[in-house]
């Protein structure tokens, strides 16, 4: 490093600011947790000191970096905290609220720093918060506040300066010094003298000790880690290839070298995977605040407990898990835990319990969210599911309680439910499940009426490398993720005759008293089902469906590196990705949930049990339809499979360009088409300022179709008549005993100018 040029200096500053931001965000998460904890245990010196320290650090650094508004804000907050810590004030709910507001404002300011490099964003109103803090500061004990504050100010400056100077040598001897100095009781004997001063000494003495820990780790760019993971994947593959080649090698030296390579590669892989691991505590640190706010808003009393903070999983998975977990926690509070009055009436303590638990189990991470609320009533669910056409009455009659409860994850169920009942929340449980399945996980709900609900999410440790069963079909090789694997069953000719039955065209395996639907690998791949003399069945499980895939050959289990496949193949439900085998050939990874859905295995079960051939034909031609109201009382229907989401937008979100209407939606623009106009009806006026929109996606383009409201989802075999055929309408049909227009989706979509 020679002399610093101007550019170097700017870079240095940017780096310091970036570090400051990362550190402060971590600190703020800690702060949220501490403050919520504090409300439960007011007066805890330890917590108050910790909070004080965090704010103090932010204040110090922001002063140093000349973020004046941030400094002013944290300064007042610090004063308030110091008085709380010294027992001069009590932590009342309003005070706690003002502190939380301060934390939020600090976060907003940091956001502004991150975006613009300055803390002067006009949108963040610091003065109001400062005023609120000052009110809290002068609140109950307005008698002698001025002096204390002044002492604090006087004491602080020199100490901070000293700390700057001493830093380097202290850090070096930190390990020696930290032990005798760190214990908090140090300032207990002299609280009257100069509490601020002593506290600062303690705080600053803590710093070097902490820094020593920080020095032991290095911040690494995530992109770099990702590329390392990629490279290790390659290395593992190459190793597999080399291993295969040298199995028969005579050269002892070569064999020895390969063994060593094998070992090193495995260890390297393990090590690299570890670098991407992060504790789940990172997600959980946000929960206390969410639960607190939500509990307040919903009028619940909730005791949040969390176990297994340090359970680690791949950071990309952790990222993907955030949304679903938050949703499940919200759900537990919203629909699980009752109001205090209801709880007391039910003979439970008024405070509900929400337990988050995470642990490792057989190579997977399990996250449990359980509450002791009112539970889910299977009868209600079932009634609702039948109403919505999610299941038929026949199917319903044969479902086990657990299956019934898990119906809430079905798309048909939740979209319909969300729009009509719970309103306005947008994301349903089906989205939770989709998101969890996308990362190779599963979710399962168990509930006892009156006693509570437990939601169990299982996720793989990492996405990049998974164990899989390799099977052969003809000349081809496929991989089935181990996570979906239940067991392997081999049936010789005589066993086959005994335990395989074909009911209504659907082959079934009697396995320990249960009927298991069978799908042959050939069928999965879109080929005719072969006649086999013996069967090898891979029993797999996806969500609540268990079925068997008949395969030609079972090879072995291997660690495979999951690779993405091109956009041309993403829409195929059969494949989850691809991998490269030991011989360098590409093998496709089967998507078990996708296969289950595509081959309607769930349906096969019920069909076979009812064993009614007549019904099969009917079901084959029937489609799920979304029935809706448009143009003031007219009924129209469109195929449910064309509907990707149902949304409600506030009218003032609609923006116009020319004659076209659009809303901003998921980081993009969603063009809107008014269905009434598109099919020649008169637009009706709604009283509330909301519009109901059916989101249709095809390829990469999306269109929102504005309707009056959703009436129902029905499963019906539709006979389309020419009656009422016109632009935008294919014809009409009788659905639920009423004449309903069948929407010509293509024509309607074309009006939006998209999709053509």
């Amino acid at each position, binding site marked *: 490093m020679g002399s610093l040029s101007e550019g170097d200096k700017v870079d240095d500053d940017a780096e310091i600011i970036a570090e400051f931001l990362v550190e402060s965000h971590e600190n703020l998460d800690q702060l949220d947790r501490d403050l919520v904890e504090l409300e439960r245990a007011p007066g805890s010196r330890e917590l108050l000191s910790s909070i004080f320290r965090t704010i103090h650090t932010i204040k110090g650094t922001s002063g140093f970096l000349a973020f004046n508004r941030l400094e002013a804000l944290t300064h007042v907050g610090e004063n308030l905290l110091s008085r709380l810590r010294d027992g001069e004030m009590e932590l009342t709910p309003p005070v706690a609220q003002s502190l939380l507001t301060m934390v939020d404002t600090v976060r907003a300011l940091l956001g502004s720093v991150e975006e613009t490099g300055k803390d002067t964003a006009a949108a963040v109103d610091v003065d109001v918060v400062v005023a609120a803090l000052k009110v809290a500061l002068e609140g109950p004990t307005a008698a002698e506040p001025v002096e204390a504050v002044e002492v604090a100010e006087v004491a602080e400056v020199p100490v901070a300066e000293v700390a700057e100077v001493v830093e380097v040598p202290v850090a070096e001897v930190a390990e020696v010094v930290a032990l005798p100095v760190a214990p908090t009781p140090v300032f207990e004997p002299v609280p009257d003298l100069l509490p601020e001063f002593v506290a600062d000494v303690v705080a600053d003495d803590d710093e070097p000790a902490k820094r020593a820990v920080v020095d032991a780790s290095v911040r690494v760019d995530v992109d770099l880690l990702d590329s390392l993971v990629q490279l290790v994947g390659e290395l593992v593959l190459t190793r597999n290839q080399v291993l295969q080649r040298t199995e028969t090698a005579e050269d002892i030296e070569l064999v020895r070298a390969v063994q060593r390579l094998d070992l090193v590669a495995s260890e390297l892989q393990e090590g690299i995977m570890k670098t991407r691991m992060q504790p789940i505590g990172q997600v959980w640190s946000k929960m206390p605040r969410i639960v607190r706010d939500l509990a307040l808003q919903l009028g619940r009393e909730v005791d949040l407990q969390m176990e297994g903070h340090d359970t680690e999983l791949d950071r990309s998975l952790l990222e993907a898990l955030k949304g679903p977990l938050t949703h499940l926690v919200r759900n537990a509070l919203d629909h699980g835990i009752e109001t205090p009055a209801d709880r007391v009436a039910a003979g439970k303590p008024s405070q509900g319990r929400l337990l988050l638990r995470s642990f490792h189990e057989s190579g997977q991470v399990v996250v449990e969210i359980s509450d002791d609320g009112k539970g889910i009533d299977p009868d209600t669910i079932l009634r609702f599911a039948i109403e919505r056409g999610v299941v038929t009455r026949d199917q319903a009659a044969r479902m086990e309680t657990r299956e019934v409860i898990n119906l809430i994850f079905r798309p048909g169920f939740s979209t319909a439910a969300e729009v009509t009942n719970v309103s306005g929340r947008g994301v349903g449980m089906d989205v939770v499940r989709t998101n969890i399945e996308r990362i190779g996980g599963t979710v399962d709900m168990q509930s006892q009426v009156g006693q509570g609900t437990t939601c169990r999410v299982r996720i793989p440790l990492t996405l990049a490398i998974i164990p899989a069963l390799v099977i052969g079909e003809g000349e*081809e090789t496929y991989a089935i993720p181990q996570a979906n694997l239940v067991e392997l069953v081999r049936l010789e000719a005589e066993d086959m005759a005994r335990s395989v039955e074909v009911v209504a065209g659907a082959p079934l395996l009697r396995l320990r008293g249960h009927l298991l639907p069978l799908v042959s690998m050939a069928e999965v791949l*879109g080929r005719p089902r072969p006649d086999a003399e013996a069967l090898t069945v891979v029993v797999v499980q996806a969500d609540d469906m268990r079925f068997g895939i008949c395969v030609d050959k079972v090879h072995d289990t291997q660690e495979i590196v999951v690779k993405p496949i091109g*956009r041309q*193949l993403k829409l195929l439900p059969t494949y989850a990705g691809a991998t490269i085998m030991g011989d360098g*050939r590409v093998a496709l990874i089967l998507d078990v949930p996708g296969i289950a859905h595509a081959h309607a295995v769930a349906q096969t079960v019920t069909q076979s049990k009812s064993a009614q051939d007549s019904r099969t034909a009917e079901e084959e031609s029937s489609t799920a339809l979304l029935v809706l109201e448009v143009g003031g009382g007219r009924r129209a229907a469109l195929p449910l499979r064309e509907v990707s989401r149902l949304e409600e937008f506030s009218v003032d979100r609609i923006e116009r360009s020319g004659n076209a209407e659009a809303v901003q939606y998921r980081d993009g623009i969603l063009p809107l088409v008014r269905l009434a106009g598109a099919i020649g009806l008169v637009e009706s006026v709604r009283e509330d300022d909301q519009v109901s929109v059916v989101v249709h996606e095809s390829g990469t383009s999306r269109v929102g179709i504005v309707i009056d409201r959703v009436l129902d989802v029905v499963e019906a075999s539709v006979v389309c008549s020419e009656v009422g055929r016109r632009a935008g309408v294919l014809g009409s049909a009788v659905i639920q005993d009423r004449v309903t227009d069948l929407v010509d989706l293509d024509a309607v979509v074309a009006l939006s100018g998209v999709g053509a």
Partner: protein
Amino acid sequence: MDHQSQYCTFWVDGLFFGVPVSSVQEVLRYQQLTVVPSAPEAIQGLINLRGQIVTAVDLRYRLGLPARADDALPMNVIVRSRGEVVSLLVDDIGDVITVDTSPRSGLELEPAPANVPSVVQDVVSGVLALPEAVLLVLDADRAADVSVALETTTGGTP
């Protein structure tokens, strides 16, 4: 210099194509393909390109041309398209040619003549009437876009 364009040329069923070299990553001999059952016909399979999985789109199918003779092995023109790498399977590889499209050369990219089949027009951004042949300038992105007809995937019955 501004008016010079370089094209990587190849033949598909007698048609003379060119792709701007900027979108070509490399050209490879025949590679072993892993078939993808129930994929659209034009997807001939997947190849392992140094650890990366690349979809191979057969331009003969993509352009609605008759299939290649069984013993004729296609070549791979590996192109970058919409952030992915895609292999276009072609009959034979030609030279990389430099075309002078400055006004004084009298050559410019013209729209494809109207009587060229629409499936070819779809993937061509224009034609260059070179002295010795007509070069069809391929739009790699559009050539690599193969929509998946979902109906082909759900059928359990043949």
